[in-house]
């Protein structure tokens, strides 16, 4: 079906046959677009509406643990009554208790710092890959993707073994004689940063690599030819031209890092305040589904801004690539 929509005949003008193909192409195009729309509707919008509805409900000692529960058997009037029971109390609660505000801010700060650190680590890697001999690049690309073949959870656990006071890192540093007291890294923000940078590095490297790889090296030569030393040429030519990759990479790291739960839980210890952990606690420890739903909705709203920015950046990059 998509064949007729994608073939050049579908967009060409002229004969009646062309017109027919175009009509068909139009219908086929709409159909092609309808599939992802339907998918998003079913698997994103509907669950979101359910979560949103729960966030407007009250906790109850029942199954499910909130009220009201819509029951179609009560008829239209019953449904309207139940709607009246919904309120924004949970959102007020989020504002009143400083815990949530602090958790949001702390999440954003940790995610932002982690993103910058990932960029600092990822850019040289991506640059090195893009400048490597063409025959070596697929191997390097493979090495970046390879960790994904192991469970994320196991890889984060592995970091505990490395970072704990009697762990590999401390043993090594003690043996070499750089330190004489084990470093306390576990259960600190540093451990979270290490975990996030490690886990999300591929998301930073891949878009950066694709932006740097397609850059014409003669631009750098041209800059040097015009009197620009290599370092300055990097900042004036390479970096600005890789900006779409930088933006894409940063958002791909920042967005999931804000809601990250596993890394702060395993590496950050009980002290760390992050919204993903708060949400988990509300949901499983407190069994307060409505409040945790409200936390999730606010988190989503916080992330919509960077997501929209990301999509704009993507659209612009595609425009320029043309």
């Amino acid at each position: 079906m998509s064949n007729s929509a994608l073939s050049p005949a579908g967009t060409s003008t002229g004969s009646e046959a062309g017109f027919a193909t175009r009509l068909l192409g139009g219908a086929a195009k709409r159909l092609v677009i309808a599939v992802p729309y339907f998918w998003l509707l079913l698997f994103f919008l509907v669950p979101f509406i359910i979560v949103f509805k729960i966030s407007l409900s009250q906790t109850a000692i029942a199954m499910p643990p909130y009220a009201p529960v819509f029951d179609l058997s009560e008829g239209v009037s019953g449904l309207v009554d139940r709607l009246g029971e919904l309120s924004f109390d949970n959102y007020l609660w989020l504002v009143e208790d400083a815990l949530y505000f602090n958790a949001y801010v702390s999440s954003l700060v940790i995610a932002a710092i982690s993103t910058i650190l990932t960029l600092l680590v990822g850019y040289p890697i991506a640059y090195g890959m893009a400048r490597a001999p063409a025959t070596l690049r697929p191997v390097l690309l493979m090495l970046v993707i390879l960790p994904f073949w192991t469970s994320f959870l196991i890889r984060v656990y592995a970091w505990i073994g490395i970072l704990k006071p009697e762990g590999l890192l401390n043993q090594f540093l003690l043996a070499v004689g750089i330190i004489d007291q084990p470093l306390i890294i576990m259960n600190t923000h540093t451990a979270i940063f290490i975990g996030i940078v490690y886990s999300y590095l591929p998301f930073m490297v891949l878009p950066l690599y694709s932006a740097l790889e397609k850059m014409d090296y003669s631009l750098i030569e041209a800059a040097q030819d015009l009197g620009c030393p290599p370092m300055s040429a990097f900042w004036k030519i390479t970096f600005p031209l890789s900006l779409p990759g930088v933006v894409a990479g940063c958002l791909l790291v920042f967005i999931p890092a804000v809601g990250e739960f596993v890394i702060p839980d395993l590496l950050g210890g009980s002290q760390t305040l992050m919204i993903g952990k708060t949400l988990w606690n509300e949901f499983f420890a407190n069994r307060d589904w409505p409040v945790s739903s409200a936390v999730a909705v606010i988190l989503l709203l916080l992330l919509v801004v960077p997501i929209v920015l990301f999509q704009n950046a993507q659209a612009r990059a595609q425009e320029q690539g043309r």
Partner: protein
Amino acid sequence: MQSLGSIRRDFAPWNDPAAKPYIVFDQVTKRFGDFTAVNNLSLSIYEREFFALLGASGCGKSTLLRMLAGFEEPTSGRILLDGQDLRGIPPYRRPVNMMFQSYALFPHMTVEANIAFGLKQEGMEASRIAERVAEMLKLVKLEQFAKRKPHQLSGGQRQRVALARSVAKRPKVLLLDEPLGALDKKLREETQFELMDLQQKLGLTFVVVTHDQEEAMTMADRIAILDKGEVMQVATPAEVYEAPGSRFVANFVGNVNMFEGTVTARDATGATINSESGIAIRTENAGDAQSGAKVAYAVRPEKIKVSSRPPMDTSTNAAEGEIYDIAYLGDMTVYYVKLGNGLMVKAATLNSARLTDDPLTWNDRAWISFRPDSGVVLTR
């Protein structure tokens, strides 16, 4: 033979023993791994010269240019610019600028910013930069495109931006790597003259790399013909065409008929050659060919006369054959005449009249003939 000088009548510093060359390649060799791109090459280029490096791809011409720009260092040998050894000087400190084959315009900058880029690196003050940029835009007739980005320009406009950017700094030498390669034929012809004009106006030394002989012939004061990293000949376009130094050069530039043979007599006025094709050749341009030498006699197609009637003297410089093929090109007609022993001779006739009273057609018997000064003897 009278003169085979340059197009610019008074400009021939290479003939002046007192003139000092501006750029000197002194026994330069460049190897990439076990591939030798440039092999022990020496070459002198003079100030204000429009110099062309002509050769097929892989002949080392681009490597020469890149060594001059500083992107590659010679494996051995020296490159001198105005007496100064360039070894170790990075590209950003060399007083040469390059116009890249791909133009290499900065896609994230406007036309203006592209042209200003080199001037800013120099630390020129803003008001003077603006002045110079305006001047450059005017020079390449792109005033109304100053605020555009490169991707909003046509190929020809991009080429002119690249040119403006590379001359904005007033370099001592401008290097052009296939400057017209990406343009279509008509635009290329126009641009050739614009480039020559610009070179005259700015008084710069131009070194242009090209694989297009017509381009090199049109623009250059002198052409260096390269093959496998070595210089085959350095000469003015007219010399390269009318007095090629070797079989390679004669074949490489333009069309040629080659009569292989042996010099049977040599005297002050010329030589007599007994060609393998059976034609007895008498020539006035024998060069240093000695009696008994195996040589080639090269005659350009347009210097061979083709006619249905035999020439006055059929004993030398003439042969009878059959018209094998005819290529009518509008301005000229090329006859492929097959001689008795199978040798194919190309003869081009300028169609100066619309109608001819001696029409030749396929399979006609025809005579080819040329004058004693039509060709040259090649010993190499």
